[in-house]
């Protein structure tokens, strides 16, 4: 057994223990993007994403990656929101960009997420392109990340989708109150979608990634 808080991005009052997967099952390691594609019936996309198949980058995806890198850089340098995402360039208190977290859902499924930015109790998701933040807010991304954060010892209360439409140079934002009720619904959604996808992989002998480890996260004494 080893302790590895740094890798898991845990707050100081939490400690993690990595143990060998006792059931020796291959872990099904999934993310919101994969499960969202699966839940919408885009099975081929979901499987390709899971298997990390090389995807040709179109201009939209490339723009998205470039904007994310730029915004992460600006936040790390200035400790404030980038102008494209917030006209007021709001000052941040303790921003953590590209925060990668992972939690076990059960003995064979692991959920992983990379949060664009967490500042104290506010979770920010950055979006570019023409789809409005209100449309993203109809999805469950920040709810799933809220669940992921709460299971990792954080306590987010608000989720903000910050969207920049680079084609018309306009910004819009959507606020989601992150409640226990929403976290519970997100948890149930993750369990349902990931189990459904896992069963499909087993039935069709598709390869599972196999880190063969589990994390136990608890409050440090």
């Amino acid at each position: 057994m080893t302790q590895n808080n740094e890798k898991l991005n845990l707050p100081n009052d939490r400690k993690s223990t990595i143990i060998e997967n006792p059931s020796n099952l291959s872990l099904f390691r999934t993310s919101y993007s994969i499960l969202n594609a699966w839940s919408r019936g885009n099975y081929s996309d979901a499987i390709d994403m899971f298997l990390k198949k090389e995807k040709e980058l179109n201009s939209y995806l490339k723009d998205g990656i470039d904007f994310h890198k730029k915004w992460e850089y600006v936040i790390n340098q200035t400790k404030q929101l980038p102008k494209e995402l917030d006209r007021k360039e709001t000052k941040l208190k303790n921003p953590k960009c590209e925060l990668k977290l992972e939690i076990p859902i059960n003995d064979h499924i692991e959920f992983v997420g990379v949060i664009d930015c967490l500042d104290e109790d506010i979770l920010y998701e950055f979006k570019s392109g023409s789809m409005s933040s209100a449309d993203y807010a109809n999805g469950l991304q920040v709810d799933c990340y809220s669940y992921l954060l709460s299971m990792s010892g954080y306590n987010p209360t608000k989720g903000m989708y910050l969207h920049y439409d680079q084609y018309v140079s306009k910004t819009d934002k959507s606020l989601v109150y992150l409640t226990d009720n929403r976290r519970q619904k997100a948890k149930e959604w993750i369990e349902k979608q990931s189990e459904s996808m896992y069963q499909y992989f087993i039935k069709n002998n598709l390869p599972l990634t196999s880190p063969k480890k589990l994390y136990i996260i608890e409050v440090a004494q």
Partner: protein
Amino acid sequence: MLNPPPIVEQTMNQDNQIAIKYTDLEVIKNESGKVVLNHNAEKFLVELLNLKDKVEETIELCKGEIKRCMEELDDQLVSVNTDNLRIMNRVYGSKYKLDTELIEHLDKKFYTVKPTFYLNTKEVDEYIKTTDIIPTGISINNREKQVSISLKKSNDTK
């Protein structure tokens, strides 16, 4: 003999929620048909329609207040999502408007012309009356009667 109209109570409870007695609404529903036989039974329905107007008016006032608060907080905010509500503050409808009077100056790639058909009901009625035949291409809609009720405005003489 008519029962006295039920009083629909609207009160603020301890959780600051508006409470309306559903049992009163059930009584109104059961009594409403009596207005057909006795016009004095209108009290039940007037009470209900006043309540509906008040609720709708209050919802509109809430929308105005929410819009003000959202824009005061952040004029780039377009939606707020809670456990049970999705609040949107965004523009609706077409982004652009076509000025048909200036259509000859407009490049044809910017618009599409679609024919519009209007049915001439008077001519169809006349044709069926004289021939007892429904013209090919016309069918009769299966229309059901619907009751409508509305409060008379004070200056409404109809």
